[in-house]
Structures are given as C-alpha cells and as structure tokens.
C-alpha cells in the first residue's frame, strides 16, 4: 500500500505504509469462498475466481482431450471444458446425482467448469484461519491445495484454480 502525497512545490513523493500502521478496515481480513464437496472432502475456491454455478446435465465428450476432461458444456453461449475433480484428485468416480454441480471459474483469459459432487455454500473464512498445507498432503507436487482451514469440526481445503486447470502436471516441482 502506498500513497501519493503531493507536496506544495508540485513534486511528487511516494510514501509507504509502515508496519505499525493498521491495514485498512476489512480488506484482506477475510476471504469469501465458494465451498463444494468432492468425495468425502470439502474444498473451497475464492469467490472472486468463481463466475457461476450450474446444475450438471451431462457434457459432450471430446475425444482426445485429457482423461480428467469429461467433455464440453454450453454456458450462456460459451463452450466450456468440464474438468471432473474426482478424476483430477484420484477419487473413485461415483454415480451421477441431481446434486452434481459445475463450478465455473476464471483465471486470466481461461474459463473452465469444475464438476463437483455438490455445492451449496458461500463461506467467509478469516484469513488467520488459513494455514499452509502439510508437505505430505501435497506429496504429488501438484500444488492443488493452496491452504487449509479448520473451522470447528470442518476441514476446508482452499484450491489453487490455476494449478488445477494446468494442461500438464509441471515436472520436477
């Protein structure tokens, strides 16, 4: 955070906020998240990443696409790939149900729909509750989980959307 202070002489100087100054009220103290379930676990994405949620009525298979892509769907005139998070996370694929949802997320220019078991909730997570994931959890090296939050009895894993929609797993990371 920096502020421009215009001095009387017309010159401009940049003043940085010192560490003792409090952060502006609210900004950054909490994180608004969309929470959904895949298998037995709960995951979250920052609400600012999520464009919308839709019910899932099947996708058109795209032959030759990566195995975790179940196909494409049309959402408001746009054709979006649907990435099955069960397949991506190595969870055995369950029976399709009416609870299934697609969570449409955007990072940069890319818009991808994630297929999840169910999604209902928007949750405010205090940033102080977000802890780095244990190294063992991230053993695959893919960095899908950005942070963990233990909210009472619930454990919510905050996902890194950009990593999840990467075309290939990065090597040697």
């Amino acid at each position, binding site marked *: 955070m920096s502020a421009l202070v215009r001095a009387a002489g017309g010159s401009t100087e940049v003043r940085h906020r010192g560490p003792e100054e409090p952060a502006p009220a609210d900004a950054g103290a909490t994180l608004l998240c969309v929470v959904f379930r895949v298998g037995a676990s709960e995951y979250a994405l920052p609400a600012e990443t999520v464009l919308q949620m839709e019910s899932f009525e099947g996708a*058109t298979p*795209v032959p030759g696409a*990566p195995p975790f892509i179940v196909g*494409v769907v*049309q959402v408001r005139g746009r*054709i979006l790939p649907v990435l099955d998070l069960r397949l991506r996370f190595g969870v055995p694929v369950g029976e399709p149900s009416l609870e299934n949802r697609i969570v449409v997320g955007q990072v940069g220019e890319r818009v991808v729909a994630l297929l999840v078991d169910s999604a209902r909730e928007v949750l405010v997570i205090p940033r102080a509750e977000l802890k780095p994931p244990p190294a063992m959890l991230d053993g695959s090296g893919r960095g899908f989980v950005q942070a963990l939050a233990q909210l009472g009895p619930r454990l919510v894993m905050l996902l890194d959307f950009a990593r999840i*929609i990467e075309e290939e797993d990065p090597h040697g990371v």
Partner: protein
Amino acid sequence: MHATFTPSPKQAERGLNITAVRERVAALAEIVQVLPLAVPPSPDAPGGLSFALLLVTAAPDLDIAAAIGIDASDVRQLDSAPVEPVPSDAAPAVVVDEPELLDEVAPQRLRFVRVDVARLDDAMEHLSTLIVTRSRLARAVAGLRAAGVQTRELAEVLRDNGRQLRDLRASILRVRMVPVAEVLDRLPLVLRGLRRESGKQVRLLVEAGNAEVDKGVAERLFPALVHLVRNAVDHAIEAPELRARLGKPEEGTLRITVGSHSNARLELTVSDDGGGVDRAAVARRAGGELPSTDDTLLDALCRAGLSTRDEATMTSGRGMGMDIVKRIVVDQLGGELSMKTEAGSGTVFTLRVPLTLTIVDAFTLDCRGQRFVVPVSSVEEILEVDPAAVRFGPSSRAERLGLIERRGEAVPLVDLGGALRMKAEAQATRQALLVRYRGEPLAFGLERVIGQQEAVVRPLADPLVQVAGIAGATDLGDGRPTLVLDLYSLGAALQERAA
C-alpha cells in the same frame, strides 16, 4: 495536379495496384492526398472503385501518367501557373484549392459508413441465436409430426423462414467483407523496415484483384503474412552481392497473389525468388531424416522454434515462426498451408483459408453413437460403403487402413471414430466422407450422414479441449454442444501419428 487510378485486372497484370502506384508516384511527386472514389462498375473499373491522386510535382505529365499506367491526357493540371521546381530536401508548399474536385468527392464519400467491427459482431451474434432458435423450432415441428399432427403449413413457414435467414446471413456476411488489397496495403510498411534492417534489396509485388474476405479472417491472417514476408527477406532472399554472383537481379522479388480457390475459400500465395529452403539444414536442425518431399519439409519447418540460421537476427529472431503461421492458418482459420520450394530459384507458400468464419453449412452425422457436424465445404463427396467390399492391407498398427473402390480408383478409408480416438465401440461403416488431403483423396468411414443444416461454430477456446480434428462446437437446437470436425487437420494428425 490531379490524376485518377482505377484498379482493374488489366492494371493488375502489369503489377499495378494502388500500393504500387503510390510507391511509383512517390518517387516523382509529393502526394498530397489519395482519395478513394466509388464509381459505377464498368469493364474498366470492375471493382467500382477508383483513386483520385492529388500531387505536387515538377515532373512532366508523361512521367506521372506512365507511373500510374494511364494516358498523359488524363493527367490534369490544377494550377494554371507553372509549378516551381521544389528542392527535394525542402518541404514543398502545398496549396490545394480545387472546389470542383472536392464537390465531386464529397457526395461519394457520404455513401460509406464506418462501422465498429464490434457492432457487426453483435449483429452476427444475434443472427446466430436466431439460427439456433430455428433449429429448435424445426425440432419441435418434427416432434409434432411424429405425434401425428398436421404440420404442412408449419413446414412451409419453416421453409420460408429458413430462406430468409440464409438471405439475412448472406447480407451480414457481405457487410463484414473487406477488400484483401486493404489488408495487404500494410505490408509495404513492414517491408520497408525489413529492408533497412537486413540491407537487402527487395521489391514487393501485390496482385490482390477484387478479392474480399471477412474482416475477422483478415485480422487473423495478417500476422501470418508478416511472418512469411519476414522469412522471405531474412532467410530466402540473398544479399545483393551474392545475387549478382548467382546471375540474379540484385533486387529480390517478393510476390503476393490473391485469388478465389472456390467460392468459399481464398487462396493467397507468397513467393520469393530467393535460394529455396535448405533441406539439409532443416534436417540437421530438426534432428531427423532429410525431408524428401515439400510436404514433409514444411512439416519439419512448422515444428516449434525451428530456424535454419545459426544466429538470431534482429528481424526474425532465432525461429522462423512457421509454427505460428501454421497455427494461424490451419488451427485458427481451419485453412490449409502448403509449400513448393526449389533450391536456387525460390519458394512459394500457398495459404487457403475460408472466406468467412462462424456460420457454416454443415453435414450432421453419427459416429459411434455421438453426433458430430462437418462443414460441407470440406467434403468432396459422400460415399456409400459396403462393409464387405472394404479391403485391408497388411498393417502392424491397431488402426488399420482400409481401401475402397471409387470410380475405378482405390481410396484409403480411415475409421472416423478410430481417427478421433473415441472410446466407444466401433460400429459398422456404412458411409464415408471423401476429403482431399494434400491433393490425395482420403475417406473417413462412419455409421451414417444424417442431414445438412446451418451451424454456428463457436471455437473451443480452452487449451484443455483443443484437439486435432475438432474445430469447435455448435448448438443444433438442443442446448448442448455438438462438436464440429475439421477433417483436414484430422488427416494431418493421422499422418503425424503414422510417421
């Protein structure tokens, strides 16, 4: 003075278009203004377009007329006083006062409207939704008919509606068309910079004729042309001293021609009179065998990051960017790219691209239980296949190539589902789509072709679903995406897999 240049095939034959005229006249005169004028189309002005040139010069009429390719009597002096010779390094005092001429220009100009492309896209988008709605309507009527309802009048309305939509589509597409010459007009500027950087002498001949292309296609195509021009100057055309030693004119020639390949495709050629592509150098770089044909040589050139030069240069860096050219022409525009090269005498690149994007006439078909569409323009013929008459040659691969007879000629038959690597089980091949891949016939076998309809093609923008052979998706009225196949790129992918 005032002179008029009217583009025509006759002028184009002599290498004269407005760009060439500008360059030639600029050498003799100070160009005050070049005004495009709409004129009634005639044999002399088939494009209905003419350019008025206002010039300040001391050069004789005869020279100016020769530069423009017109009779000296058609050059008019606007000033009764003799023109003072202007020292070449001093800025000429430009005073143009010719009310008569301006009167002539103004009303013509009023006939044109400048439109933001976004507005045209908008109109196109609305038309697209209309076409999708029509598909839904047709589906609903078919449902009624199946339920035993009398639908004759409805069907008639549908037919009229379909025709009107086609007319509307044609009108909007026409509005979006821009002269190819206008796109190519930006190339001389690019070339000027390249000439300066490379120290080579190159002249550009452009024969664009009256061809027109969709604005969206033109915008995408331009970077590919810049790459090809760059490559020609940087890699193909030799330095003046070397050219002189080889007995070539010191000035290299780069020629771009434009023509209609068929009524749905535009063909552009970019040719140079340089040294041709060095096969051995490409093989060395690509780390493979010596490419034996121009096609395999082009494939090697289009591999990402390849350059036949050891050092990076200012203009083309290390790579030739042929991978980018291919991506634009083949992947983005659904076109074809080919090349002919001859050591010592030059290279010709041929680009064939669709004139328009987004809405195409398409065949709908079933393959392994999934519905697909294929643009009609890419299919040469639909063949009936008798499964018992398909012959298989020896093959070590899982995807066996069959052979079928077509008018006394054996044509390779590829199973479409197999080529697409579909997981569903193969079904009996009853029909095949015949396409031409690099001039050779190739048939894709499938269960059945269902019908023909208009399809709004939306690109599959995300890299996760960019797959060879799939050009995009369309909505046939059921609200679900149906994949649009690009059999040409599927053929290319098969070739790659076989290699």
